[in-house]
């Protein structure tokens, strides 16, 4: 017998307080935890800090959190396909930190893996470098970008076993497997839950030790 990590969507969202810092998986809505997002909107959280690649579209994925004005701060690489996010950012309703996509992914990984930051050539000589430390290593310049962690990581997966081993599907993987390492509490919304042992060790993309709660069938 082993611990059952499955909980309901509403119970999971009840754990998340106003003001929480939350990583949300997905890329333009693909591979986002849609049921968790809908439940967040239903329960009405506010003042959230959201870290995510993008805010999708106005009526899809993380865009719904924007539309419901639940976000105080946003760390993201792209908001160009969501005019409402741009409006809230330009009008100062959301404080936005724009971060190059590859840097964002590495910063989250660094947070999850205990590294003090990353040294990247991306952003050198651009506005992204403003106020940041430049490091010279063997004659080349790199920007020091700091690690990111979050109170919660809300991720989506294709399959989970009852222990929390995860498989992803194609481009729905994106930031999910990385965020799974960097949330202090990691909640996964899988499309399917299978008996433990069904996912072979080599097919596991996120090992069960990273996952704290699994959202059960609707």
């Amino acid at each position, binding site marked *: 017998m082993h611990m059952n990590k499955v909980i309901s969507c509403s119970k999971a969202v009840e754990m998340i307080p106003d003001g929480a810092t939350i990583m949300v998986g997905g890329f333009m*809505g*693909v591979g986002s935890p849609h049921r968790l997002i809908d439940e967040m909107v239903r329960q009405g959280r506010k003042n959230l800090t959201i870290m995510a690649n993008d805010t999708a579209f106005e009526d899809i994925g993380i865009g719904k959190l924007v539309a419901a004005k639940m976000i105080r701060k946003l760390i993201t690489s792209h908001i160009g396909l969501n005019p409402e996010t741009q409006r809230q950012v330009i009008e100062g309703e959301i404080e936005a930190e724009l971060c190059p996509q590859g840097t964002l*992914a590495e910063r989250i990984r660094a947070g999850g893996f205990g590294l003090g930051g990353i040294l990247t050539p991306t952003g050198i000589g651009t506005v992204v470098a403003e106020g940041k430390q430049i490091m010279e290593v063997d004659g080349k310049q790199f920007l020091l970008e700091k690690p990111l962690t979050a109170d919660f990581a809300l991720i989506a997966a294709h399959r989970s076993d009852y222990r929390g081993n995860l498989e992803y599907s*194609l481009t729905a993987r994106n930031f999910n497997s990385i965020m799974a390492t960097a949330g202090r509490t990691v909640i996964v919304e899988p499309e399917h839950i299978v008996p433990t042992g069904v996912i072979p060790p080599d097919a596991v993309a996120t090992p069960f030790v990273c996952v704290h709660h699994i959202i059960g069938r609707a």
Partner: protein
Amino acid sequence: MDDKILIAKRVALELKSGSLVNLGIGLPTLVPRYLPSDMEVYFQSENGIIGMASVPGPGMEEPSLTDAGGGFVGAIPGAASIDSCFSFGLIRGGHLDLTILGGLEVDEQGRLANWMVPGSRLPGMGGAMDLVTGAKRVIVAMSHTAKGQPKIKKQCSLPLTSVRRINLIVTEMAVIEPTDEGLVLREAAPGVKIEEITAATEADLIVPAHVPEMQVDPALPGDLFYLGGTSRSH
């Protein structure tokens, strides 16, 4: 010939068999249409697929297989899915042979600005800064002017995407190569005079004694067929 198709056909000549290529949204996704059928080029979409192809046909869209704009795509046999760290590791680590991107401005040193217009548009840089900094070769495919104003300028007025010098600019008027000496005019589009190019370019152009005409195949298809191209239902 449509300007976009002219640009796409010319850019297609720059692709090499066996190479890994990333295409920006819009015009660059026209390029695969104009590759010889015996050439195998691998397309990376930075959201996590290597071996991107078009959707095989209507009704065969897969919700978990999309490009960086969220449009449905397909995949070749032997495609590979990767996470965002691996995807940008390939880009930053010099594994990406070529990226083809649109541009808002390029300066005399060959530096690109393509990610924001302060005060009016704040889309975020997405993957553009990593792509321009890390790809082995960067080709900017863009219209030569915008609203009659040159986009190839002495200085970019918009924020730079990277300080890295890009490798080639292809427009509907010309092919221009940024070099140590400056911007060199390599080719002129069919029927376009060199004076017209220099007049439409704010930056100084180095004009060699002989500037050949841009060679593209007019027999290749002339319809706007984008890789991906199948929008999502939102």
